[in-house]
């Protein structure tokens, strides 16, 4: 039951054991990209010692949470103050639950002080259809009423199905639907890196058009 999103773990495991495809970001690139997004957040939200209690980073499990924690650490490095960080699992709000076996739930952890009247930045690793983001927004609504909500993603691979746009993008990657984005993070996968690969063993009618990968891209159906 360790699998968080459809096809996620399987794709990643096979990706690492075999040739993972073309490298998009090296480990160093991942670190640099996260640092850059951290700077953008600081700039755009005017975050600093004065406003430290107004910013909340909420990662979308699994890898969005790791990215959120890294962003928090980076922001703390640059400003000397750490914003609040937590996680919001959107599984119970997804619109595609009936399309597969029951998914394991991931952790939802609201930071102390909640999200009411806060500036919330949702953090995910990959943005594709936008459906995971929408589910996370729905989940967030039941948690409280933020002042505003922004979105940060490591990779935006296109193929949006909803009117959702990221405020902070690590890298825009044009993809075809038959490709998948493989995100590795040291916390869960041993090392950092992002690859692009052709979907393995596409089954006519059975495979997800968005490819099995991480983040938002599994929800293209």
């Amino acid at each position: 039951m360790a699998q968080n999103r459809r096809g996620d773990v399987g794709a990643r495991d096979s990706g690492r054991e075999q040739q993972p495809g073309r490298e998009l970001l090296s480990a160093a690139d991942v670190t640099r990209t996260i640092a850059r997004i951290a700077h953008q957040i600081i700039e755009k939200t005017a975050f600093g010692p004065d406003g430290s209690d107004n910013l909340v980073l909420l990662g979308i499990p699994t890898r969005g949470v790791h990215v959120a924690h890294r962003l928090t650490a980076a922001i703390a490095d640059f400003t000397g103050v750490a914003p609040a960080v937590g996680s919001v699992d959107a599984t119970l709000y997804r619109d595609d639950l009936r399309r597969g076996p029951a998914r394991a739930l991931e952790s939802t952890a609201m930071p102390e002080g909640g999200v009411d009247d806060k500036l919330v930045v949702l953090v995910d690793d990959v943005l594709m259809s936008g459906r995971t983001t929408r589910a996370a927004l729905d989940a967030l609504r039941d948690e409280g009423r933020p002042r505003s909500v922004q979105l940060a993603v490591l990779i935006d691979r296109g193929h949006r199905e909803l009117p959702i746009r990221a405020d902070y993008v690590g890298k825009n990657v044009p993809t075809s639907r038959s490709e998948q984005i493989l995100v590795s993070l040291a916390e869960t996968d041993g090392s950092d890196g992002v690859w692009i690969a052709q979907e393995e063993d596409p089954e006519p009618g059975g495979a997800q058009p968005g490819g099995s990968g991480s983040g938002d891209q599994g929800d293209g159906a």
Partner: protein
Amino acid sequence: MRHLLSAADLDAGEATALLDTSDRLREALLGREVRKLPTLRGRTVVTMFYENSTRTRVSFEIAGKWMSADTINVSASGSSVSKGESLRDTALTLSSMGADCVVVRHPASGAAHRLAHWGGTGPSAGGAGIDTGGATTGTPTAIVNAGDGTHEHPTQALLDAATLRDRLGGIAGRRIAIVGDVLHSRVARSNVLLLATLGAEVVLVAPPTLLPTGVDTWPCRVSYELDAELPAVDAVMMLRVQAERMHGGFFPSAREYAVRFGLSEDRAALLREGAVVLHPGPMVRGMEIAPAVADAPNSAVLAQVRNGVHVRMAVLYHLLAGAPE
């Protein structure tokens, strides 16, 4: 998972997944103003109780409502059940109306199995089978056993396991005593199976008259001496002794039972630090358990009730949220 009929239906992985989901749901709802998840919107859960049990029925009802399912209660009195309609016809009727899940409490052992059988396809050896094939959903109705006779009560075992996991940090390797009327207890049967599956060491403590012939084939140990067991257990679960048993000749008197098998204050003092006291309720204070013991900090009685809702949400989630198997 298509139905939840017996704790034996769950292997360690499935049981752990259910407990994990229960924990996540509790976490997701913690401190919220809006205790409502949209997950089971448009799904219909019918609770069909042929025996009164406010505790269990309400727990399932809340679980369904918090997940946005439409929950409908059918009780035996005041329905066609009291007009002599057979369990089979009632089940087929509800299924045809589009119930996605029927939660059943029934005095007959195996009633939930029979419902699952009737709701499925294929002819029964005993008579013509009817393909109910979910008139509105195209899927068979999921059956949850909420207690069938003296057979099983799997969601009670799950909530007990959730409570023990919270309090003890785990179940594998823990020693748990189940005390009292094992013979007539569906709670005991489900708990023995589930706790053994999860790696606990279970010991049943009861007079021989309240242990079933054949208990030696269960994955547990049997003891007649409560005092000898208490110092070594991580948790003790006291079973309810129903009033009618007291006059059934199973033991000489309520007083003697209380003396030999009740969890008195003196006896509770034999428990080691941190050992947990459980009771599925409703409690007969004084006989099975001393009031001070039931209300002591190591008593998890209320935590059991709380966990009941989350565990039942988890069961409904695993049965109804995903694609039909």
